[in-house]
């Protein structure tokens, strides 16, 4: 009986794994691969690029408005985002064509492995805080991304007008002088610590560069309108972020989100802790933004983790 079960289980699992076959049309390029390897063999150090796929696919938008920390640098306003804020939006029915108007794309970046905390500190310029040994399963693999740059495509006023019109917003005028402007955000240095079931990223505050004179509040108001906020809400959100810049996390309304109390303030947990999927946990201190992704965890463990690494 047990044997039959084993056979059935074996066949069932094999069948599922067979679904992964990449297909005969995949023909790895041996010549190109050898050339790449030869390059590496000739070079003493080659930074890891494990985030390239992620970065290429990622689009990250940071909301901030000029506040007391805005510093003029040439023709750019450089804004520091040292806190995490939450905005819930309804994006269920928006097409990528509409959202692309407000999206930043990450440029390829290098992620360099380091052997220990001292190595991470040398590269990042700050000493990463990690929980005491034994708090998390496994030995952390450490790496550093020195700088991650994200940019919008050059703004097209006609695209913004179309995005507004498609979502029924007709009471906002898009300034002509925005045509062709690009907004740029920077993250990093980021230290990444990968444990068995948990990944901890800690970053210096995010920054955003916007062209001098650009009315970012107006831009954000338009974005919030497109994402379903009422006119008054969109306007007040713009004002709020103008007064106090922040890295804004986007939470779809269907996502379970709740706050937890930490020694340093408030943390935000996103996801269902009772389910099997990865959950995310965000918090910030005065000079660091933390992002944790984890499986098989609990609110208690996450709070203990955050308190242990502050």
């Amino acid at each position, binding site marked *: 009986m047990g044997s039959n079960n*084993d056979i059935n*289980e*074996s066949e*069932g*699992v*094999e069948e*599922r*794994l067979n*679904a*992964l*076959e*990449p297909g005969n049309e*995949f*023909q*790895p*390029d*041996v010549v*190109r*691969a*050898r050339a790449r*390897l030869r390059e*590496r*063999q000739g070079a003493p150090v080659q930074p890891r*690029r*494990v985030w*390239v*796929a*992620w970065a290429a*696919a990622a*689009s*990250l*938008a*940071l909301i901030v408005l000029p506040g007391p920390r805005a510093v003029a640098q040439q023709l750019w306003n450089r804004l520091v985002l040292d806190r995490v804020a939450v905005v819930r*939006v309804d994006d*269920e029915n*928006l097409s*990528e064509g509409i*959202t692309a108007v*407000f*999206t930043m794309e990450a440029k390829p970046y290098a992620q360099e492995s380091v052997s220990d905390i001292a190595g991470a500190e040398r590269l990042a310029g700050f000493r990463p805080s990690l929980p005491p040994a034994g708090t998390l399963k496994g030995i952390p693999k450490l790496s550093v991304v020195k700088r991650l740059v994200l940019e919008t495509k050059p703004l097209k006023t006609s695209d913004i007008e179309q995005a507004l019109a498609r979502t029924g917003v007709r009471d906002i005028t898009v300034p002509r002088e925005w045509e062709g402007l690009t907004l740029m955000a920077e993250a990093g240095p980021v230290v990444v610590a*990968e444990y068995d079931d948990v*990944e901890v990223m800690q970053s210096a505050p995010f920054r955003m560069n916007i062209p001098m004179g650009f009315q970012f509040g107006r831009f954000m108001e338009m*974005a919030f309108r497109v994402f379903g906020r009422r006119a008054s809400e969109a306007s007040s959100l713009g004002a709020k972020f103008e007064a106090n810049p922040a*890295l804004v*996390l*986007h*939470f*779809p309304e269907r*996502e379970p989100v709740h706050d937890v109390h930490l020694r340093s303030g408030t943390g935000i947990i*996103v996801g269902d802790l009772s389910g*099997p*999927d*990865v*959950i*995310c946990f*965000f918090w910030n201190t005065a000079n660091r933004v933390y*992002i944790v*992704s*984890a*499986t098989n965890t609990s609110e208690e463990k996450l709070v203990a983790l955050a308190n242990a690494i502050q």
Partner: protein
Amino acid sequence: MHAPLEAAEAAAASLASFDFEAIFHSDYARIARVIARVIGDRARAEDLAVETFWRLWKTPQAQGDHSGGWLYRTAVRLALDELRRRARRARYEPLLTLFCASPRTPHELLSSAEEQGRVRLVLANIASHQAALLLLRSDGLPYDELAAALSMSPTSVGKLLSRARAAFRKEYVKRYGQQ
């Protein structure tokens, strides 16, 4: 009495005859396909296949008659690490994306094909050594090569494989129910 000396001589002879170029040309495509199978991203699979051979090149103790198993093991581990990393990032990445189309689930990000996405998510969430065992077995490695590749006793392969299948099945059912 002379066994250690003989073993050392045999190892030295094996290393002396090790031909990295030949191994690369004979095994690269196979290793890239093994990785592509796990992560479903062909371009990234080629990156990781190059990384696998780079590690072989700079690890003298991996070079020799046993390099085939070593390559397999390293490739599958790199692929599984990548899979887990993607599963985690797929979770928080959309949350940092204020102006993005509907956030995709980890499953959707891992693969556009439903069953492939499920299998990858399950592999990303069971123990790495069990996932590696299942993948290498599924790739056709016989028990003795599995044992060599994963540094385990040949007599325990059957039992460990059975446990790995049970773990896979349990995780699959937990996520997707009996199907």
